[in-house]
């Protein structure tokens, strides 16, 4: 089997969302002498990328994304021993995410958190109806480089602006990127309140986070 065929096998295994298939594909790749970094980058991560595209197109859904991420994690674990210390565990960046105070909507924000996690970010999901100060406290505690805020109601949108003001007051604004989302949020709103980006959906959130943080 050529290297390209093995990478395709790895990628397809991740898209199948089956842990057994991923583990078998990784074992095969290892037996063929392919470097762990290549197995991850050109095989597993490529598969996760395809999963993200299928998610965006409504062909795969959150449980599938999570199963694929779990399967990929199992595959990476098999490679850890052969990789430089801590390389396997290294996260892309730390992100604090939550739905602002007064707003109990959870599903969209949770999908964003999961997609970010699945893409390699360390995500601290604060949940829903989050007191605004908690965003600031968590940023300080984790050293996060991005805050994501969701709001599904026009009445709770201003909470996003308030957190930005609080970041400024605490001298954190230059160190932290701000992403906003939720049904009533728009690019115009993001521009108006001085957020760094607006994301229409979970896939876009991952793309924007990568653009801003990597």
């Amino acid at each position, binding site marked *: 089997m050529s290297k390209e065929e093995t990478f395709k096998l790895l990628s397809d295994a991740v898209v199948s969302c089956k842990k057994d298939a991923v583990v078998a594909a990784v074992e095969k790749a290892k037996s063929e002498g392919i470097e762990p970094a290549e197995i991850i980058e050109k095989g597993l991560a490529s598969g996760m990328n395809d999963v993200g595209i299928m998610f965006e197109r*409504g062909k*795969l*859904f959150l*449980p599938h994304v999570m199963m694929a991420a779990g399967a990929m994690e199992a595959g990476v674990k098999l490679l850890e021993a052969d990789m430089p210390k801590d390389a396997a565990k290294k996260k892309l960046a730390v992100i604090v995410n939550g739905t602002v105070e007064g707003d109990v909507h959870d599903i969209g924000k*949770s999908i964003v958190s999961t997609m970010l996690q699945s893409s390699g970010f360390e995500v601290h999901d604060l949940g829903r109806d989050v007191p605004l100060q908690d965003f600031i406290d968590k940023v300080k505690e984790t050293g996060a480089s991005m805050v994501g805020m969701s709001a599904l109601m*026009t*009445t709770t949108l201003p909470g996003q602006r308030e957190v930005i003001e609080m970041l400024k007051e605490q001298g954190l604004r230059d160190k932290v990127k701000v992403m906003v989302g939720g049904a009533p949020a*728009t690019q*115009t709103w993001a521009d108006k309140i001085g957020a760094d980006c607006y994301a229409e959906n979970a896939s876009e959130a991952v793309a924007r986070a990568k653009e801003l943080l990597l």
Partner: protein
Amino acid sequence: MTTEHMLRMGDGKRVYLTKEQILTDLRDGMADAVDLGDIPELSGDELDKLMDIITMPSRMVGVEAGMEVPVTHDIGTIRLDGDQGNSGVGIPSSRLVGCMVHERAFGADTMELGHIDYSFKPVKPVIAQEMQTMEVCQQNMVIPLLYGAMPNMGLYYTPDGPFENPGDLMKAFKIQEARESMEHAAKHLTRDMVWIMQRMMASGSDGVNFDTTGAAGDGDMYATLHAVENLRKQYPEMYIEVGMAGELVLGLHGEMTYDGTVLAGLWPHQQAPLAAKAGANLFGPVVNTNTSKSFAWNLGRAVTFIKAAVKASPIPCHVNMGMGVGGIPMLETPTIDAVSRASKAMVEIANVDGI
């Protein structure tokens, strides 16, 4: 100098575009729908007509004579008496007065009675009040009066309901447990919706409107289709309207099926036949508005999707037209230029049976 036409972005902002820019956006929006839904493109004539509708100089437009369609109404009387930032205008009035105003002053062809919470679950403890109000409204009205509410399966999860929140379970990677929680919630939701409608039918209701079906994902739609099936068996003559929450059924469970069809990932033209199969006699397809795209892009996309849904549907389709759906910008009070143009396009090009 090139003539520019005033349009809206999906967030309501005014923009000025040339005919060429509008045509490009119409084509791109259409192509997005064709690609996602695997459905046919609009014809050249239909694109020309869309262009005509968008560029008409009048502030508002109407359908051609003879092409009028019935208008069904959801959200009950909340549009009048609601005053909590929910797009109601805060006019103090009883629900009887509200229903009658819709019938006699607003020209609604059907109306629905709804509770202020507008979800089935909170109706359970106030069912006697709902039954009494339905009876009084029926005694004073002529047009079909349905009972309307949202399935809103989210109310069955913690902290609002008895079952563990699948969102929390998912975050802990407990996928199987999350799925089981959705299955339990769906069973209870079906039971509650049937129980409530049995009582409303006993009070003279002409039927039911399941509004924003699928808002909590595929489990929400699963529960609703089973409630429809159950009610149709019990009441062969009742009106059953199934209106959707969004264009795509989100697969929060991912593997729930109805009549052998996986519910996750269904587009409007795939949802309509299933609603009919369950026993609905009216379907309300939805296409979401993208706030970052122009009205032309959104309308081209929405008309393409809805035309396919109308064609595939064995029952009449009353398209959802309002804040953030049907090509209309995402504004609490959508602008009449966009609402009237989108509505005209849905009737004359997508051939909807009603709005």
